């Protein structure tokens, strides 16, 4: 049943011009970055901030709006003999699959073409991870608030928080507690923001120069070893599973 609905949601989203525009935008960005920058690792770094900003922004805004615009469709399905959980997961998978596809075509494949190694793979993984996380946060927002305007506003604020404000907060903590050893705290803090987590993962792969001094060693040891990698993977999974699970709980109880 889920597969059938996903198929229809997917078809609907793929025909939506926004996803096409998003794909082309990513593709143009990645090609221009890879072609213009003579220095390839510098190119990959210019791509970094684009991935870390545009992917979450697009995913969270597009998905939030899509859910609101699908309210009648959801209403239609809810009145049919289908589990609500199935409807909601279908929406999630429809969104995730289409946006992931856009990312794979727009950035993943060019990245793998120019970097057929761990760097390219990491760019692909990180982008997909961010897509899943921010679609799932969008579902949580759209599921919790009935008001479309309010929901979109919350989505934008969440994006601002994860993309910028959180880092300002971290910097503030760094300055407030600079007399204490903060390396462990920084590792924990980096887990609490999917964008920071992605950035660090990506940098460990593509920019070995980031490994500077003692802190670099701490980060590298933590993120590069078995347990650290395991915690990273668990944390990344939690980042899209927990909001999704919460949103399902909310949607199941919600009046349509």
């Amino acid at each position, binding site marked *: 049943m889920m597969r059938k609905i996903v198929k229809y949601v997917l078809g609907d989203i793929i025909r939506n011009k926004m996803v096409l525009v998003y794909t082309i935008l990513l593709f143009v960005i990645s090609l221009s970055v890879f072609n213009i920058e003579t*220095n390839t*690792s*510098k190119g990959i*770094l210019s791509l*970094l*901030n684009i991935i*870390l*900003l545009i992917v979450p922004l697009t995913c969270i805004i597009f998905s939030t709006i899509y859910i609101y615009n699908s309210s009648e469709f959801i209403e239609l399905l809810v009145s049919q003999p289908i589990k609500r959980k199935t409807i909601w997961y279908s929406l999630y998978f429809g969104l995730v699959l289409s946006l992931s596809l856009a990312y794979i075509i727009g950035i993943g494949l060019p990245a793998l073409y120019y970097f057929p190694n761990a760097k390219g793979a990491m760019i692909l993984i990180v982008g997909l991870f961010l897509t899943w996380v921010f679609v799932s946060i969008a579902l949580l927002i759209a599921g919790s608030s009935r008001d479309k305007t309010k929901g979109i506003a919350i989505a934008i604020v969440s994006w601002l928080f994860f*993309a*910028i404000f959180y*880092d*300002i907060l*971290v*910097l503030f903590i*760094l*300055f407030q507690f*600079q007399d204490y*050893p*903060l*390396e462990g*705290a*920084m*590792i924990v*803090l*980096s887990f609490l923001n999917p964008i*920071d987590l992605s*950035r*660090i993962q990506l*940098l460990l792969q593509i*920019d*070995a*120069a*980031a*490994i*500077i*001094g*003692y*802190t*670099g*060693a701490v*980060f590298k040891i933590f993120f590069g070893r078995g347990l650290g990698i395991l915690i990273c993977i668990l944390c990344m999974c939690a980042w899209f599973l927990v909001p999704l699970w919460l949103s399902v709980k909310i949607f199941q109880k919600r009046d349509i």
Partner: protein
Amino acid sequence: MFKISISPYFRSACILKMSGKYKLFRHTLYSILIIILSFAVLPSYAGIVRVGKNQAIQSVQQGILQAKEGDTIYVHAGIYHESKLIIEKSITLVGKGWPVIDAQNKGEIFFIRSRNVWLQGFKLQHTGRSDMKEIGAVMIYDSYAITVYNNQIEDANFGISVQNSKRCTIKDNHIKAFNKNEVLSGNGIHGWKADSLIIIGNAISGHRDGLYFEFVKNSLIWRNKSTENVRYGIHFMFSNNNTYIGNIFEKNESGVAVMFSSKIQMYNNYFHDNWGDATYGILLKEITDSHISGNSFVQNTIALQMEGCSRIKVFKNKFINNGFALKIQASCDDNDFTHNNFIANTFDIATNGTLVLNTFDGNYWDKYEGYDLDRDKIGDISFHPVSLYSMIIAHNPAALMLFRSFMVTLLDKSEKLMPIITPESLVDHFPHMKPFDL
């Protein structure tokens, strides 16, 4: 015969001391030397001692005892379990077909305390180590004009040690150890209180310091390759007036560190892939009046760190793909950086103070975003190579978490427009638009 075999050195020594008004005398001396040479050379070849399993003399020890001043000892292929071979006369020792001298961890192999010794073609191995003293495959003490040429040294505590000696040449040796720990291991080529050494074309790996000099002066270090040592590729202190050309220092645990010396010339060396916590492409501490030029610094954690340095000219070097290209402490003054390429470094320059007494004009920085309206290939606006974030991270290493975050990029950009925290005087007034062809 003794005098004759040293004559080339003697001659050059004389020439150096000559001044113009003794020209006539010099010519006369020349002629005399040549005449003596032509008579003396023939008998010197007569003294040949052969050591080998099929020879009358079967041990190197015996060979050395039997040889007379100026004799040549040929040691034929085979394994010789010997150690503590003391050479106190002017002889030439040549290995034929790579004879192996294995000390079986019993101590030093050759002790040389002499003049004009030539040691060539041996494979020396397994000296063992001691906590009490430095044990080396070749130990040269109080000597003059010793040549160690084309030997292979494996698993020695120290490779070649030159102490209190002059005019020694160490050339084309392969020195290899398998150390894991810097406390237990010794240096590849170790110089202490030496003068006028020539160290060329050696390949050293796996020692504590590949090359180590203390109180060594007027020496030339050329085309050596010092890699994967457990501490420094080269480490020297109190060693003035030395020249380092075309050496390769790669993948050493702590890179290269040089201290308390002046009048150092470093040209066209390679400092590559020295990664790690507190690892430097090269650390200069209290170095003065020196030149650093044409070197290539690629993929080091910190390519060049300077502490308490003065009057160093750093020009025409390449800094590519380093974590920090240059960390210069406020204790440095009067150093000049020009015509260097800074490309794809995470941070170009970091410093720990606001006082800057060094000049940075006329370099190429790939991070420069200025313009060149008058097309003189020099950017029209100045470049500040220190970023705000590099200051933050130098002060507070845990800020690494925010590395390359969007927020940090924003901060850096705004700081570039209006410098508040970064030193305003650390500036390149004439940044080049295009990299130099180095």
